[in-house]
């Protein structure tokens, strides 16, 4: 039996194909203005990698902000539940999940059964989300993926005066005009991001083990700063792309709903 999880986020759309034992294939693409198109494209890519026909997919669960727009979904489940499901499957000892997506940041506490105990989300603001890093990368004229490596080369982080993405952007431009190196600016950006997320994590009362999911989990500079700030080791998801955790959780739900155990 093959099932699918499709996670339509604000920046990327992800699909995971699962057969009850392992992930058969996955895909990550940029979200489209028409979410349905993105979902189809991501599914096609994943099916091509797994060399399976879309018709063989028994059940699909949609998740993420665009979950109601997944045309081939049999059911929808929120991203909080799906990230929890996915992270617990990968690391059964995890009790706190920090999920930093493109549009928001969530901290989820879970119990020993892998059920959500509590969650907190950021206030409606781009600071502390993937969008913040994307905006800063654009100002620095680098790819988002390069930001982390650039930050690691920095040795004297700049300070961003404001938590607001728009004002922080203005600060970055000011530092560039002052001739500050991009590396030091990138380091400051990652520290600022970590600080903002740290506030939210502390609100939720952290329980070990802690893991991080979502696209920003791939920015090792932010994760390192967050570890320093919180004084805990954060599990880095290595066996699966951390950005796929929500889609994986959706696929696991799909498997259960289709009658698998």
């Amino acid at each position, binding site marked *: 039996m093959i099932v699918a999880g499709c996670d339509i986020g604000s920046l990327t759309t992800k699909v995971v194909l699962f057969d009850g034992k392992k992930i058969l294939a996955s895909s990550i693409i940029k979200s489209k203005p028409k979410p349905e198109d993105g979902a189809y494209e991501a599914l096609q890519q994943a099916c091509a990698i797994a060399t399976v026909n879309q018709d063989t997919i028994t059940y699909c669960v949609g998740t993420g902000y665009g979950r109601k727009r997944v045309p081939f979904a049999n059911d929808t489940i*929120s991203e909080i*539940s799906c990230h929890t499901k996915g992270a617990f499957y990968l690391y059964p000892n995890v009790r706190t999940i920090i999920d930093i997506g493109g549009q928001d940041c969530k901290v989820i506490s879970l119990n020993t059964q892998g059920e959500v105990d*509590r969650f907190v989300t950021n206030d409606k603001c781009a600071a502390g989300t993937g969008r913040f890093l994307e905006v800063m990368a654009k100002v620095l004229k680098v790819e988002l993926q390069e930001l982390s490596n650039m930050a690691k080369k920095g040795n004297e982080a700049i300070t961003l005066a404001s938590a607001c993405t728009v004002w922080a952007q203005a600060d970055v431009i000011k530092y560039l005009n002052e001739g500050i190196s991009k590396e030091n600016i990138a380091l400051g950006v990652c520290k600022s991001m970590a600080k903002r997320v740290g506030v939210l994590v502390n609100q939720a009362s952290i329980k070990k083990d802690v893991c991080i999911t979502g696209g920003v989990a791939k920015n090792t500079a932010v994760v390192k700063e967050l570890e320093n700030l919180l004084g805990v080791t954060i599990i880095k998801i290595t066996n699966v792309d951390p950005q796929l955790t929500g889609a994986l959780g959706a696929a696991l739900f799909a498997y259960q709903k289709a009658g698998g155990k």
Partner: protein
Amino acid sequence: MRQALKQYNFDWMLWRTYEAGSRLLAGTKQEYDIALRYIPYFRDPVKEVFKAKAGQLFLQMTATYLDNIVHAHQRGKKTCMTTFCFSPAIVYALDMVPVTLELLTVMMTFLYKRGTGEFLDYCNEAGFTETSCSSQRGSMGALLADIGTPIDMVVTDSPGVCDTNANAFSFFAAYKDLPFFQLNMPPWLVEERVTEYHVQDYKALVAFLEEQSGKKLDIDRLRQILTELQKQDELINELEQFLCYRPLPLPVTTCLFIYAGRFMFAGMPIYTRLLELLVNEGRENVRLHQQGIYTSHEKSRGFFCYIDHYTHSLRLWQMLQELNIGYSGNILSHFWADSNPPVIQNNWEEAAYSIKTGTLEDMLTSIAQINSRMPMIKSIRGPYDSPYMWLQDTLALASMYRADFIVYNGTPGCRNTWGMVKLLAQDTEKAGFPTHIMYADAFDDRVQSWDATRDRFEEFLRVRRLI
């Protein structure tokens, strides 16, 4: 603001709409069904209100309130702009017409899909900050633009309680160069000096109102209003007993009717009739073992520790009904009379008000005390965890109503509560109430769409295993 919106006075439009809505049930069922076809815009809010037996009277009462405003000057009465947390009883006692901004904003946002956006924005054009409270701006914008009944004076009582609220009124008074009076609130509630302060401050208010209205306070009229208020308190006490029952024997809109009615017509017979209707419905449902949510079993019950969400078509109440959630009250629906159930249960008489109608002094003391116990005025004036303040009230009411969870609805625009709500939520969680901070502007869907708000709310209910 669009030119089209300036064609008619906004309060006149509201009055005509509510007036027509209140008469929809006057005909046959068939006529009602046909009428709904012709009012696609207002169909949903009307249907939602009519789910309660008191719905028709509620609409009539709202139409009467608007009629009073629209025709105030024609009838030789002065208009007094004020806030929801100021008891209008004294305004009625001086034969004037209260114009409560938050009520007008809610009336508008209930009805119009576009909401009050253009009026909100007009306030900013006039010089308001964009982060000021939207509950006043939603209707104040229209009055600033002169598309409403002119205001004769401004009275508020929120300084020290809610500064964004107080600033809105002082802004309007300055902008329009109107007489202005503000009652000030000390950060404590129960202390002899505070009681004395409230009474003296209130006497100065009465003098101001007398001067501005050109009328002397009629003692008999004041006594009549206070006696009516006593009657209303007794009815509210009985309703509160019903609201503690599970399943809920009253519609989920009951609390809305209770507080909106009190903000409109405290001490006036029309509000007494509404309460009587609600009490009769409650008694009947209890006798028949029926529940008021008109759906299947009440799955869980919420207490709103601040305000509700008012944007188009009463969607908050629709959602509660769809999910079979009982809703017994919020911080607005509580008025703290000394005969009120939680006051008696907890021996909180010192923090409550009592109504005495003997001498003028008795009456002025009573009405000053009533005002100082208005929602928000009572419990947001001091630190959230001080005696008789927000935390204590929230926990007492949530327990009394047998709530399973607590919800706070607001944005950083609600400065005086937003600044404390995370601490409050930590404490209510510790006390065993799952607590949801619902980030949403109750009067402006542009801040966060209702769909996104509902999504988060439902997620909270699911993950905390409340539904």
